[in-house]
């Protein structure tokens, strides 16, 4: 138990260290660029010149380039932990506020898609692996190979065309009906849910192919293990063999995969949020990049890194819960 606890603490520390490295990089990178990060923004001759004097002042104050580097660093860190991420040039609003208004939408979209695609992949992958070589297995593999290779914007446009434009069942864009006032919480949930269906479905299908193939192939490997033969020899019911021993072991690489793909899931939402005009982080990234709104890009980068790191740590700890060999490694 002691060794397990040590492993746990070690992991948390290594994540904190990674977070610190990212924070520091985020601080150093703009300052290491030739000139300084504000040169273009404060130079009236530059195409990036910030016209709003209030914003210019805020930027200068935020970066505080006239102070010693260490002090800048300290102020930067304090700022981050108090939610001060700078100010958007384009919207003239604090970056923290922008992120706070967008992050929940992305979490909702990506979370829904992750849950759905994982559940589908686990069930279908386990069944296909259990029946390896059968007609069902081959059909499932073919479908998912296709899914894994179709770009999400293609499926997305197809859905918008079919369910939005042609059939008119679902809204084509946005996270909610603009200017709507909801009488009840339920009404709000229904409206948001209706807007969520198409983007979430598109993202789910985009993630499903790879996940299914991973579960199915791991399952086939696990079923060939000696302990599966022993479990069969023990006369256990099929469900226990398939789920209790088969999937229970096949899920381990899957969880590791989830962690590795947490970042991909968020940035993968850029396409879909743009396509569906969904008010999440992905669209914020897209808009900020188009407008060269550097403070926002940096802020978003920081938040996404933190989210990915947290997801990684969560998956790691989950894996450790699932596999007794991990923390003792």
């Amino acid at each position, binding site marked *: 138990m002691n060794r397990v606890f040590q492993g746990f603490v070690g992991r948390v520390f290594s994540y904190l260290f990674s977070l610190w490295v990212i924070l520091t990089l985020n601080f150093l990178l703009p300052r290491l660029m030739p000139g300084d990060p504000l040169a273009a923004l404060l130079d009236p001759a530059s195409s990036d010149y910030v016209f709003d004097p209030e914003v210019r002042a805020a930027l200068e104050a935020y970066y505080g380039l006239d102070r010693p580097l260490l002090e800048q660093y300290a102020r930067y860190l304090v700022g981050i932990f108090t939610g001060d991420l700078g100010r958007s040039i384009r919207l003239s609003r604090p970056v923290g506020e922008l992120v706070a208004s967008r992050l929940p939408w992305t979490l909702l979209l990506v979370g829904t898609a992750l849950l759905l695609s994982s559940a589908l992949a686990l069930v279908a992958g386990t069944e296909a692996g259990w029946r390896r070589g059968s007609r069902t297995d081959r059909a499932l593999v073919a479908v998912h190979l296709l899914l894994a290779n179709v770009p999400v914007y293609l499926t997305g446009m197809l859905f918008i065309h079919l369910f939005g434009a042609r059939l008119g069942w679902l809204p084509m864009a946005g996270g909610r009906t603009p200017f709507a006032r909801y009488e009840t919480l339920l009404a709000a949930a229904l409206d948001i849910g209706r807007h969520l269906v198409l983007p979430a479905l598109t993202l789910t299908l985009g993630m499903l192919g790879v996940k299914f193939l991973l579960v199915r192939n791991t399952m086939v490997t696990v079923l060939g293990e000696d302990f599966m033969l022993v479990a*069969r*020899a*023990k*006369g*256990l019911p099929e469900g226990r063999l398939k789920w209790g021993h088969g999937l229970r*072991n096949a899920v381990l690489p899957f969880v590791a995969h989830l962690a590795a793909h947490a970042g991909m899931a968020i940035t993968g939402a850029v396409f879909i949020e743009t396509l569906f005009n969904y008010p999440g982080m992905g669209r914020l990234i897209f808009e900020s990049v188009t407008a060269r709104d550097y403070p926002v890009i940096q802020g978003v980068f920081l938040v996404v890194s933190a989210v990915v790191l947290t997801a990684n740590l969560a998956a790691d700890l989950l894996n450790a819960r*699932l*596999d007794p060999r991990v923390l*003792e490694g």
Partner: protein
Amino acid sequence: MLVVRDLRVTFSRDGKSGVRAVDGVSFELARGGALGVIGETGAGKTTLARALLGLHPPECVQGSVRLDGRELAGLSEEEWRAVRWRRIALVVQSVGTALDPVYRVGEQIGEPMRFHLGLSPAEAWARAEELARRVGLEPRHLCAYPHQLSGGEKQRALLAMALGCNPEVLVLDEPTSGQDMLSRVRLLDLLADLRRERGTALLVVSHDLGAVARLTEEVAVLYAGKLVEVGPTEAVFGDPRHPYTWGLLHSYPDMDTARDLRSIRGLPPDPAHPPAGCRFHPRCTQAVEKCRHEEPPLVEVAGRQVACHLGGLQTLLRAESLRKVFFVDNGGPRSPLEAVRGVSLEIREGEVVALVGETGSGKTTLGRMLVGLLSPDGGRVVLEGRDLTAAQGEKWRWLSRRVQLIPQDPFDAVSPRMTVDQVVREPLDIQKVGAPPEREEKVRQVLKAVGLPTDPVFLSLHAHELSGGQLQRVVIARALVLEPKLLIADEPVAMLDPSEQARVMNLLKEIQVERGLAMLLISHDLALVRKVADRILVMHQGRIVEEGPGSRVVTRPIHEHTRALLESAPRIGVFTAEDAEETEF
């Protein structure tokens, strides 16, 4: 209770031609009985063990497996479930990977009890603790995960798991593999105790013959998917009758074996293409034409069943109360000297028998009588069932093709006027074997077999131009050229220096195994012959005073003369027990 009839397991490779891993195996296991199945790796032992639990795809299995009269072959997966573990449990061979890595050991031991006996998790855990204690595990082992246990602990956990539902039959697949000697002994004791306590019938599948001997009363020998010998363990191990069983037992190292490992010649057949006829015939030393075409059935021989057309291992040569008296002329009246006083012996197919005795014990005289160079004054010599006493003419020629002598002194045996080529070819010329080109080819082959060059220069050398070792090899080649069944080697290495002695001895042993010969090795050097001999006969003053397996004679000699011979055997820098006593003050 468990009756297996004509069980066949065929695996298809890419859906094409089948590999028959188990082919027509039948046996019975009584309630509380114990049966061992032995054989080399790849003989089909594990396939057989798994077939008893219905673990192969149903389309691969034919034949009948009955448990208390109920046919198990052809049951559906659902029906098998009720049989597995409750009635027949299995301890698999791959101990390291047989436990699910993500569950605690205790949960896995309890698991079958939960599903078969309907116990709650807590009850199952309690029962698991009881079982674990019985097999020598502690509660802390149950709380551990498989990767935290040692190999021996895992083996015990698997055993506890198998006992959970108190099965009537316990199938043990290589229960002792990968264990050190001490834990192996403990495990065997435990298994024997468990069997006595619970009345569980054991089916032990193993190549650990010691384990099978310890645990079972009956044994079945599996070769390339077929049973070749089935009978009481004591009878089969004590007096193997199938040539394969004999070879297998003689390949097995036990504590007493002083002899170097003897292997059966050749390799087991590729299961996809087993040889026609008896599957063992390419490796068998006594195979006849019939063995190549017809599969031998299991027939009753000497209290067990043997699948051999010849009724099992053949006696190659038998001597019955041989006597020889010489009259010595020492000036006065000729006095009789009894050199051999009523010696009987047997040499079996493929066996190496050493005849050991000091100079003048009569062993050379005996050897010369066996090859027909001396006619005995009493008794008879029977070779492959033909009486050879005073053989002459056709019979004599036949005899010299079956039995060849490697004489004591090669310089004495080879005419100084003949070249190497002539010396080796002479027997072929005398016997008129084949046309001259064939004879030349044969000469080359045997010279190669004994590790000599075959170039014209070497072939034209004379005896005095060769080294002792080379000349001895030439003499061995000469003895081999007629492809005899029995070699009688009289002090074959006595004239050589020690390193050359070892080399020639290894060569002889290798030739004996590869060509499937029997050999009678006459020597005064017990230390040397114990390296190669299956059986040792000790001769003293014209009589055989001690006879037994090489290992026994060397480690536990009975006759005082044997002890004397052993004590006089050369030792280099090795302190014996007596030496140690002498040096202690």
